């Protein structure tokens, strides 16, 4: 028996009941489309996050006050917390020689006013090293200098979006703006950076860190961001930071050092789990599609009982009948799978077009898995009806009306 001819015959059979065949296929189409679409969204998000982290620099360590348990359970702040101070950052700069740059960092929200316009912004208190530690540079004018920090000067470097909103086309350099109720002089404009990890860097204004402490009425730092001389030294640098800061904090390790890599791998894990869960849920609809195939095959066998009897009378073996109906169900599921893959790829592209913030990435393994799965659905849910067809009694089938 020639399998190709059986396949062609099965196509002809599917053509006879076009609408029914299509509706049967639809279950698989929807299943495969959603698997591809959801997995590609999950993978897109993962790649997007990876890129974002890479753009922030991979040799960064972030020191936050308080000990955060990162292993098991939700983050938990324990014991009394001694705050990180500007002096801590200075100590790191002096003693931790594996660090290339140290940025004492204060963060807050405020409004910036210029004449009658105002805008809500993120205010970041930094020192001069912030620029090259983060790879985010001033474009016009100058950035916050170490002098500005020591002298607690009220100077501000503003982001591109803030410039557009408050100044329009006029030159903001040397203009006075109000942050909260305090007047600041604009000394520079940052380059365009865009949104990264949910923060719109063009909507940030930078002021000297000590000025920021005054503005927000605090003695402590939000974070200390450090860059290590090379990625290989991340662990050694971490040890150095711990030893320097412990000495200053009564020998207590009441701070947490997070590397970009650690955060990235945590996020990676979360996104992978999310992808699998989404894919799995979509996979359930594939199984439902398979049940639809089984149902239709059983109906079809009932309708074609006579045909089965005739085929057996002229010499078809049980095996021939089994293969014939199995190929029909596999044809339905595979055709559905192929259409679903195409729709999934198209859908992923369309989703990215409609929502540019939603990155999608169609991975080959998702396509392969979806395809293999749809073929298997045809086999799995086709075997029972096909077996039933092959075991029909010849005489009774010939009499069947």
């Amino acid at each position, binding site marked *: 028996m020639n399998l190709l001819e059986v396949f062609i015959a099965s196509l002809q059979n599917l053509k006879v009941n076009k609408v029914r065949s299509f509706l049967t296929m639809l279950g698989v189409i929807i299943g495969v489309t959603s698997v591809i679409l959801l997995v590609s969204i999950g993978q897109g998000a993962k790649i997007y996050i990876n890129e974002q982290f890479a753009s922030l620099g991979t040799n960064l360590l972030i020191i936050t006050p308080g000990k955060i348990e990162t292993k098991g359970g939700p983050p938990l702040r324990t014991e009394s917390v001694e705050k990180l101070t500007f002096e801590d950052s200075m100590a790191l700069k002096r003693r931790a020689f594996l660090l290339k740059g140290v940025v004492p960092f204060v963060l807050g929200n405020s409004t910036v006013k210029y004449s009658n316009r105002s805008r809500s912004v993120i205010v970041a208190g930094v020192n001069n090293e912030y620029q090259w530690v983060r790879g985010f540079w001033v474009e016009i004018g100058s950035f916050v200098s170490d002098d500005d920090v020591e002298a607690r000067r009220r100077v501000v470097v503003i982001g591109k979006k803030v410039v557009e909103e408050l100044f329009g086309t006029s030159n903001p350099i040397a203009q006075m703006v109000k942050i909260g109720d305090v007047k600041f002089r604009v000394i520079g404009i940052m380059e365009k950076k865009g949104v990264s990890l949910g923060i719109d860097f063009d909507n940030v204004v930078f002021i000297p860190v000590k000025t920021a402490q005054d503005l927000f009425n605090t003695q402590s730092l939000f974070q200390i961001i450090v860059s290590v001389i090379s990625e290989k030294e991340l662990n050694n640098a971490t040890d150095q930071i711990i030893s320097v800061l412990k000495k200053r904090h009564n020998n207590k390790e009441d701070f947490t050092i997070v590397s970009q890599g650690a955060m990235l791998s945590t996020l990676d894990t979360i996104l992978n789990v999310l992808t699998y869960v989404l894919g799995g849920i979509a996979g359930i609809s594939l199984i439902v599609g398979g049940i639809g195939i089984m149902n239709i095959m059983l109906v079809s066998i009932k309708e074609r009982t006579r045909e089965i009897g005739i085929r057996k*009378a002229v*010499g078809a073996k049980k095996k021939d009948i089994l293969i014939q109906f199995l190929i029909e169900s596999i044809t339905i599921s595979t055709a559905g799978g192929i259409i679903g893959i195409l729709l999934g790829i198209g859908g992923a592209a369309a989703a990215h077009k409609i929502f540019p913030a939603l990155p999608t990435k169609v991975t080959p393994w998702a396509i392969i898995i979806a395809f293999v799965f749809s073929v298997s659905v045809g086999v799995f849910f086709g075997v029972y009806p096909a077996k039933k067809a092959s075991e029909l009694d010849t005489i009774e089938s010939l009499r069947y009306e």
Partner: protein
Amino acid sequence: MTSPLIILDKIERTFNFSKITIEVLKGISFTVKSGAFIAITGPSGSGKSTLMNIIGCIDTPTKGSYILEGTEVSKMDDEALAFIRNKKIGFVFQNFNLLPRYSALANVELPLFYAGIPRQLRKDKAESSLASVGLINRGLHSPSELSGGEKQRVAIARALVNNPLLILADEPTGNLDSKSSLEIMSLFQKLNIDTNVTIIVVTHDPAVADFAKRVITIVDGVIELDRSKR
């Protein structure tokens, strides 16, 4: 003297239903020589169709021995029986049993398909088989476009296409008018004479049985009369 094509020895067939057992055939024995033209007659429910199904290898006897061409077939498995149905036996049914969505030609090709014959050869053989029943230009018509007599000719062409030893016809004229019936029976007679193929026809119509060279009458599962002409 060659050995007979068919030897039936004390064939019994009983059907078991949940509460009752029905004995349909109660010990049928006869032999058929190659080239015979036999009619099996009898009233409804006499067991003639069951006998026919056993001879045709789509049913197996409960007891007894059936030797076809020197081989015992009553104990064969499905695969072996399918092979015999395919290569050695051609069926003709009362209600034609053509596949409605297939052309006449494709219907005739069907046994060749299961015999594993390549496509082109299949087509050639099916066409010559259709020609031998007088349907040269009807190959591409679907069964619904053919008359009853033509449908039965297609069925006969299908039965003949694998050059079987034996053609089994179960009430082949049951759904035909008298003119077509006569044509079909004449066709059987001609085939029997021309190709020496063995033909067994099951019928309750004496006019049809009259075409055969030997008539076996079955009543209540036993042979009542076995009569050869001349």
